[in-house]
């Protein structure tokens, strides 16, 4: 498209974005930025609830049977409810809304240079359904019998029969909330894919799209392709619970393993659904703060496709010893270990990006680098668990728990802080305090390792997950193991306390921080070419793109960055 036509379009489009009343601007918005922030704020509130749950059950493990300050007594039923909903909240109500829906909404139109999502009202509906699902989940904690306590994987028959789970309505509302949430993200996902395919700024070719956008789109495609079986499974589970069908009950001809296949067919791609957005965000941040072109843009992109494709054929590694035919396991060992190939290549490319750079340790960069370091531990320990024979020992032990927290904590929490600190100036037009940001970083990263590294040892000692009190088992009640539990719990409390630094920094900077320039990090991507915060409609003149997103430190140029929309001389 020529520049002239672009300019003509811009004029007509500017007229559409007049000032809106408070209600339509913030409560019922169609603006993708506000919707994105609604997702992010909802996710952050849920993260506080999830962290509080973690605090309560970690206290019970460290000091079994004692009253937990700010919670009360954690009995076996409460313990099950706390671990179940901690997992559910952190994956479905923090990682998904913040990383995909939140930053996806906020970033995609800004980074591809268009004025809004192509289906703005669908976007609003998506958030509203998500909000309903959140309320349903929170309601489920308070119904008679308490919240659902059958683990976040909710294996039937425990989850499908009220006499077994003892949480009649808790279980039903839980599965209802999860199903509603998926409906919401399906609506959002259609929007993300369509927008990226059709609404890119003139001149932006597929290979000019920033990795952050690419990876969100790949994640959304993975999500949409995998979620169908789970929604079907959720409906079947709900019918088992409320209508007395027996899809998962052997006594009625059903099969409990069916649910596991449906769940993990979704559940394993889901890992990459939340991983890829963070990987993309980290790629952009690393590139900006090391002033380097991304090492092997195409390689990184293709490894993401390969990872996504492989993730559909590895699901049964969660079921090696679940009663499936042992011969099947051999196939899934091969596919599972194969996933290390694209992911190792991706990791190597990220690390190679640092070579020859000029690395500046701003807070977002610290988060991004710490993501690489900690995700590396999560990745390599996954090899142990992909090996079926070792899974005989490690299945559902604390080794698994430590492993996936070393993937999910970096993905969700570190990724969220990296993205928030990086795009904060663009979101609110003000800078965050660097000193407080660094205090918060070290106060989170060090205790995080102090929590989960010792848990690997507990896993080696044969400690199983989801047990509310290890004093019942003579081999696990030893004092030295109890000391490890206490150490992990104390580290968690330190970590949680340091989050107050972030909350303070976040809100004070939002209103009182130093005014942010349009492009505080000297970055190339399009969102930095508009004002901070961007107006409704994003750009005064819709940008035209001339080059890829990662032209940093190009030889022969005085400036070490070259914005995508800057016309060539």
């Amino acid at each position: 498209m020529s520049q002239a036509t672009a300019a003509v379009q811009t004029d007509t489009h500017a007229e559409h974005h007049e000032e809106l009343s408070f209600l339509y601007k913030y409560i019922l918005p169609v603006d993708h930025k506000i919707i994105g922030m609604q997702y992010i704020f909802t996710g952050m509130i849920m993260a506080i609830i999830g962290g509080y749950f973690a605090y309560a059950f970690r206290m019970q493990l460290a000091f079994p049977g004692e009253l937990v300050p700010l919670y009360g007594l954690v009995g076996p039923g409460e313990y099950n409810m706390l671990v179940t909903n901690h997992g559910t909240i952190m994956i479905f109500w923090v990682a998904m809304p913040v990383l995909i829906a939140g930053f996806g909404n906020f970033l995609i139109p800004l980074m591809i240079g268009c004025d809004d999502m192509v289906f703005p009202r669908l976007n609003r509906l998506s958030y509203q359904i998500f909000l309903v699902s959140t309320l349903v989940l929170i309601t489920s904690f308070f119904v008679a019998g308490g919240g659902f306590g059958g683990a976040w994987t909710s294996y039937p028959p425990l989850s499908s029969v009220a006499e077994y789970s003892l949480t009649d309505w808790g279980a039903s509302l839980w599965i209802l909330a999860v199903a509603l949430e998926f409906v919401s993200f399906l609506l959002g996902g259609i929007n993300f894919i369509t927008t990226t395919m059709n609404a890119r700024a003139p001149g932006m070719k597929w290979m000019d799209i920033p990795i952050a956008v690419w990876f969100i789109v790949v994640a959304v495609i993975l999500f949409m392709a995998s979620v169908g079986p789970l929604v079907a499974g959720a409906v079947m589970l709900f019918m088992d619970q409320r209508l007395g069908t027996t899809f998962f009950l052997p006594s009625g001809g059903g099969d409990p393993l069916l649910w596991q296949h449906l769940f993990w067919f979704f559940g394993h791609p889901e890992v990459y659904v939340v991983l890829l957005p963070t990987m993309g965000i980290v790629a952009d941040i690393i590139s900006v703060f090391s002033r380097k072109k991304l090492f092997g843009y195409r390689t990184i992109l293709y490894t993401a496709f390969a990872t996504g494709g492989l993730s559909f054929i590895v699901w049964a590694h969660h079921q090696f010893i679940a009663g499936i035919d042992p011969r099947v396991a051999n196939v899934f060992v091969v596919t599972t270990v194969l996933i290390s190939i694209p992911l190792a290549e991706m990791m190597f490319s990220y690390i190679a990006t640092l070579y020859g750079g000029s690395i500046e340790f701003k807070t977002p960069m610290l988060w991004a680098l710490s993501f690489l370091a900690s995700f590396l531990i999560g990745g390599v320990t996954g090899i142990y668990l992909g090996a079926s024979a070792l899974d005989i020992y490690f299945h559902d032990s604390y080794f698994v728990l430590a492993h996936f927290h070393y993937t999910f904590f970096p993905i969700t929490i570190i990724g969220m802080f990296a993205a928030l600190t990086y795009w904060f100036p663009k979101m609110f037009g003000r800078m965050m305090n660097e000193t407080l940001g660094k205090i918060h970083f070290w106060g989170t990263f060090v205790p995080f390792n102090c929590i989960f590294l010792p848990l690997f040892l507990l896993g080696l000692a044969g400690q199983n997950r989801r047990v509310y009190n290890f004093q019942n088992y003579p081999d696990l009640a030893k004092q030295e193991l109890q000391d490890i539990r206490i150490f992990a719990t104390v580290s968690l409390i330190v970590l949680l306390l340091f989050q107050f630094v972030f909350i303070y920094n976040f809100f004070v900077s939002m209103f009182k921080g130093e005014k942010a320039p349009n492009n505080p990090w000297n970055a190339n991507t399009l969102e930095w070419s508009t004002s901070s915060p961007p107006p409704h409609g994003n750009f005064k003149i819709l940008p035209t793109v001339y080059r890829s997103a990662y032209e940093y430190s190009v030889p022969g140029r005085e400036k070490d960055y070259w914005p995508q929309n800057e016309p060539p001389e």
Partner: protein
Amino acid sequence: MIEYFVHRASSFAGDIDNLFLVITLIIGFWFFLTFGALVYLIIRFRRKEGVKAQYIAGEKHSETKWTHYPHYAVIAMDVVIIAINIMVWVDIKQTLPPRDNLVRIIGQQWSWSFIHAGPDGELDTQDDVATVNDLHVQTDKTYHFELQSRDVLHNFSVPAFRLRQDAVPGRTISGWFKPTKTGTYDLQCAEMCGYGHGIMGAAITVHSEESYNTTMAQIQNGTYESHFQKRKGTKTKFPSNTSKVDDEDSFAVLLASVF
């Protein structure tokens, strides 16, 4: 490494520990290499005044070899891991060596029932010995087990044996183990099974032949004080009003009346 934490009490425990060691060596090498490269690059290329970053696209062969060559090595090591793993897996889960004895293990909310086959080595005969939360086996005998569940999923987990297997209602899952070291070990439920999941433990006692015969005789004439009974009077804190045992069809109650 696992044996520093847990006893090694079955014939295949050593295989699993060795597999763990092999994988630790391989991925340990990769971890320290990658982590070292990361830390080195972060320190080496930190921002210095007047030093401009290099322009490397990472598309030329001379550049991509730095990520591709390690990558080929990763593939080679993957093949090693897969091969060793499948050997161990086939031994433990896919083949059933000839049995010396047989035991049926039944999980239910929230206890384990064990039916020992008795001297004739067959189940469902007169000489079966049934116990609750207390499994007795002989050292150096190959045991087959039939794992069943009466309600929800459970998992028969004996860390000292490096053994774990889900119990699925409606199915009988067979497997085997061969205890090698006498002693009493923890047996846990390792699959979330509801309110009492955290107390669904049992003891597995590996006997020498002599002590096994004495114990079995004691159980049959009712003089044996089981692990379950010993625990009853001890300090385990568990709210008493939460038992959902249904007296009519509870297998545990039925079994208890056998004594």
